[in-house]
């Protein structure tokens, strides 16, 4: 029975049915405690893993990725306040932002949805983030990874500036750097000294999960 409800929760999310997903979450919250909040969160995480696989395999497209992320966010907004402190094992902290001069947030926000659902703590610095703010956040939060998003070719130089600043302050080896955005490539990532390039939000989350596991 408990498994049925969790399966229904996953199915409704994968059917991109916002109303039914929220109904399922509410029935778990208001139910007889046979299903824990953590189990519901795990079910959403598993569903998003399926979403990620479908996107990476080319079976799903950005609209489906975005909408499933929005459904998961709405579900997590109901579940998160009910989670007892310490019950969920965070995989680590990620500091994320769009580089200085660039105001695009779509890719960054999709990544944040997925990373949070994969149980990372995400510090979102927003858009048009100065190098000092990136480096300051790395100092303050000691994250596992620093993610920089960049859509515009004219702002790619900012990525190198942040990495140089990390080196200059002697903390480059304390954090993994991952970059993503329309104008970036694997080649650029190597050239600028990042640890990884993510062509999409799902791959980015997967790469950081591997870093967390190692």
């Amino acid at each position, binding site marked *: 029975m408990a498994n049925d409800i969790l399966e229904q929760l996953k199915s409704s999310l994968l059917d*991109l049915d916002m109303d039914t997903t929220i109904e399922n979450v509410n029935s778990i919250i208001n139910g007889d405690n046979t299903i824990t909040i953590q189990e519901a969160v795990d079910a959403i995480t598993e569903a998003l893993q399926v979403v990620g696989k479908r996107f990476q395999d080319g079976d799903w497209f950005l*609209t489906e990725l975005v*909408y499933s992320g929005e459904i998961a966010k709405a579900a997590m907004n109901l579940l998160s306040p009910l989670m007892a402190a310490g019950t969920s094992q965070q995989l680590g902290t990620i500091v994320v932002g769009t580089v200085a001069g660039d105001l695009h947030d779509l890719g960054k926000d999709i990544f944040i949805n997925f990373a949070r659902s994969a149980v990372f703590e995400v510090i979102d610095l927003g858009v048009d983030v100065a190098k000092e703010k990136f480096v300051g956040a790395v100092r303050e939060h000691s994250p596992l990874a620093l993610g920089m998003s960049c859509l515009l070719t*004219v702002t790619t130089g900012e990525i190198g500036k942040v990495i140089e600043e990390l080196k200059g302050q002697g903390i480059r080896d304390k954090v993994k750097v991952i970059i993503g955005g329309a104008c970036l490539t694997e080649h650029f990532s190597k050239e600028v000294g990042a640890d990884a390039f993510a062509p999409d939000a799902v791959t980015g989350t997967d790469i950081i999960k591997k870093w967390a596991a190692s």
Partner: protein
Amino acid sequence: MDFKERILTTMNHEEPDRVPVMGLIMDPATVNQIKGKKPVDFVGMLKTPILKNNIRRLMNTNWFWRKIYNGNFSGALEGAIKLGFDANWVIYQLMKLYKEPESKLGMAFHDIYGRVWELDADDNGNMMVNYSRGLLTTEEQWHDWVEKNAPLFKTSVKNATRFYRELTDQHGDRIFPFCYAAPGIFENSWQPIGFVNFTKFIYQKPEFVKKVIDFQTDLFIKHLDAAMKADLEVVFAGDDLGQKTGPLMRPELVEKLYGDSYRRVAGYVHERNKKLIWHSCGNIYQLLDKFIEWGFDGIITMEPTAGMDLGKVREQVGHKLVLIGNLDVSYLMVRGTQQEIEDAVKMAIKAAAKGGGYILSTCHSHPYVDATRLKWMVDAAIKYGKYPV
């Protein structure tokens, strides 16, 4: 052959004397570099308390907007002629400068569709303008905007008609101006609303989405008509339908939401005996056959950083679609060596030019595209692009 015969022969999938070269010059930085002119520090002036409100008032008058906007594209065409291009695109937009507390400058452009465009300057002081967000996040806001801006839509069509006509009259004897009606129906439907909100509306408010698309289709056709009044044989339109790894939207959903609009657009162009070139950024392999089905005659961009391979595209649709573009602007046209550019030109010609149907160009433009490298590209096309290739 002259530039026009070269372009039109290529558009008919026949071999001209050599591969034509198209410029995508429009950024003030590139125009100034070609002219050897120092930029006007417009952004700097907007930071000056005494000047900023006067500049805003001036920019928002129609005559001044037309003067500076037309002037920039006139400069772009002159620059393209100087570098030896056979064609260059020209794109009309109407924007107003608004006080915008969220913006760094405290001001930003709002276009007539409800998009916010942020202003900034590059290291040399050249103005850069980039889309940042939509203003119309709710259905009510969208309806209010459309009602309130009805006079501006008319002004925009009127200005656009004059813009394309004047530029063609002034420069059309020396270069082919590809008059580009933009932004497209897809972009105009989601960007003012924001991608996340628009996606939610697709699933939650499909009737509203249909209303938006129908409205934008009608308005787009008016702008397309303005571009066609320049009376050239080829017209440009477009929509960025792709992202880095694939289409933004499932192709079946694009067909369901936009298929009739795109067929209508292509039909409108063909009824007037003209040809339609379609621009889309991103990875669009899965939409190429749709482009043929909708009636497009050619495509421009094929972004290499999104995995678009010119040879593969040629193999898939080159018999039906004229191909334009593919030279990289992330590295090659910014920092590439002359040898690298020559090699890229030779490779593009080898991949797509045999039998005609290919126009060499960069895949896009941005302020850091270097004019010297554009000239190298043109020189390489002249050197290696003579038919038979």
